[in-house]
């Protein structure tokens, strides 16, 4: 018998004898619910608690200024790496003074990665990213600083709501290869249980919220 058949046979022999217990009702924490304003405020509060910094700007023009301001404040070169995401084309078009923008997955020398979050989760201030054309998770992993752009309209209450767009007509999820929820910068508490930011991934996560974007 193959290992597969043998394992499955053993598991079948141990099946529950009783009728299956009823499916428990989903428990969505109250903190994942509320008005748009409440969820926005909670997202910001939770993201800050997780160690991210935030800025909110009204539109694309202000976004360019905010990125320039942040890079200056951090003493970083005005060179940003971002994926082919057409949703980010407007940034490439902005070209604020002395900006250089390159496109594609992160390269070892890149210091600043920029990507567009598909959703925010108010419950814990998390950002959702997914693999796919024009997306590159490496931008949120390799560079020392990660700038995430999030449209305010895309802030959901719960993780489940954030993942709802992946559900088909039958309600089942069809996921891209990888869906990642990012909450604050990379960290480790392995050494003497004290948290240090920037373990392998970015030591800084800066979230820029676009107030008026789809």
């Amino acid at each position, binding site marked *: 018998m193959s290992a597969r058949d043998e394992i499955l046979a*053993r598991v079948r022999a*141990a099946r*529950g004898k009783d009728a299956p217990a009823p499916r428990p009702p989903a*428990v969505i924490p*109250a903190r994942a619910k509320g008005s748009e304003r409440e969820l926005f405020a909670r997202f910001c509060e939770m993201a800050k608690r997780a160690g991210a910094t935030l800025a909110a700007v009204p539109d694309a023009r202000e976004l360019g200024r905010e990125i320039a301001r942040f890079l200056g404040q951090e003493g970083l070169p005005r060179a940003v790496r971002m994926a082919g995401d057409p949703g980010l084309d407007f940034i490439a078009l902005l070209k604020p003074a002395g900006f250089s923008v390159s496109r594609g997955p992160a390269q070892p020398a890149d210091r600043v990665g920029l990507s567009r979050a598909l959703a925010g989760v108010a419950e814990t201030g*998390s950002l959702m990213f997914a693999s796919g*054309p024009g997306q590159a998770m490496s931008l949120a992993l*390799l560079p020392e600083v990660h700038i995430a752009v999030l449209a305010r309209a895309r802030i959901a209450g719960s993780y489940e709501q954030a993942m709802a767009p992946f559900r088909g007509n039958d309600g089942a999820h069809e996921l891209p290869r*990888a869906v990642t929820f990012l909450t604050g910068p990379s960290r480790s508490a392995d050494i*003497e249980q004290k948290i240090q930011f920037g373990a392998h991934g970015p030591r800084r996560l800066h979230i820029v919220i676009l107030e008026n974007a789809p």
Partner: protein
Amino acid sequence: MSAQAGGRDFAGAARAALADPVLQQALANIPAGFQEKRRNAISRLPEWDALVAAAVAIKDRTLDNLDVHLERFEAKVTAAGGRVHWCRDAGEARAAVLSICSNAGAKTVLKSKSMIAEEIALNAALEENGIEPVETDLGEYVLQIRAEAPSHIIAPIIHLNRGQIADSFLESHKKYGKTERCDSARALLNEAREILRGKFLSGEAGITGANLLVSETGSAVIVTNEGNADLTLTLPRVHIVVASIEKLVPTVADAWTILRLLARSATGQDITAYTTFVGGPRRTGDAEGPEEFHVVLLDNGRAGMLASPFRDMLRCIKCAACMNHCPVYAAVGGHAYASVYPGPMGAVLTPWLAGIEHAAELPNASSFCGRCEEVCPMKIPIPHLLRLWREKENDAKLSSRRSRILLALWAFAARRPWAYRLGARVLVRGLNRLSQGAGRIRELPFGAAWTATRDFPAPEGGTFQALYAKRKKR
């Protein structure tokens, strides 16, 4: 290290641990590091109890239909272009990983912390076959250069202090031209980051564990705080997940119910910095990701456990709350257990994996205070399961002759009221005589281990039964 070593000479190892000042200082970090943070996180989530009840029900339902979910999971992985490798035991799992690596021509393999990889002793097998495993989790990396086993399932180097790590780095990093000793945690982290960065870019295959497997989508769910698992599953050409069969949950929603418990129970975070659902190789149009995706699915006795009185243990999500709240673990640390899984959950699991004859001391490494069950987010009745092991240990004559004789005597008396009364009377008189009216006994015959560090209280006013009868008459 393999689970086969389970718990040999726990008592001796525990004594050594208690006398080790460096270890004791490291263990002193546990209360503030884990217990307080967990308590705070839970107090901020009023739905905690409801989530626990839902998670227990989800896992019980899944285990009742595990064959269905395993087959569904495999079908989904296959449809996405991945492959599931079914492995009865550690040897088959090692062989599966080695064959994937050799087919891929992998010489350097990135590893993201996995307890299943520890259980199957994967690193040694890779090295023997000329493949360099690179641990990417900071703690596991430190252990790799020190050639040590983890002492905790989520904080693998909790037994080390900064100075020990600095010494190890200084010695091991000479070959990279590092000659200065790092004097802070920050500097240590930066040096490890720099050295591992180079390895991340050169690894041909990446091996991760899985915190959950989702049958609805064929995904592995992987959580880390460092982001090392995401690098491991994004950059190399091949991604291998090693996971055991009880990791299945039916749906994405079920996964979130358990994820809401996991980090809070483990580190007291609301959620880890990185939580990823991953499955299948790179899709058409993807800018990055591996070309091959494999799941090495390990049984190693778990299907048998499903049909045993230890079934509840399969709900375990490896959060480590039990060891973080265990007075025995806090006193001796993880290495004293000499098994892959230390602490209360390890004391239940190791005898199953290694055989009770190789781990008979572990079910006794407990004061039965019950905190493990109290803090378990999956409500696993750990003290009850330890008691079951003690019964088996006694039945198999693995316990000491003296304890078996005493238990047999007690069992004889417990079933015969006259014998119990007589025995109790004799004992009380004897103890009273020993105390010579002092109310306490300095040295107990046959109980010197107990009285070596404390006095034994002498009974006052006769046996319990005699006192009870007297009060009833009043």
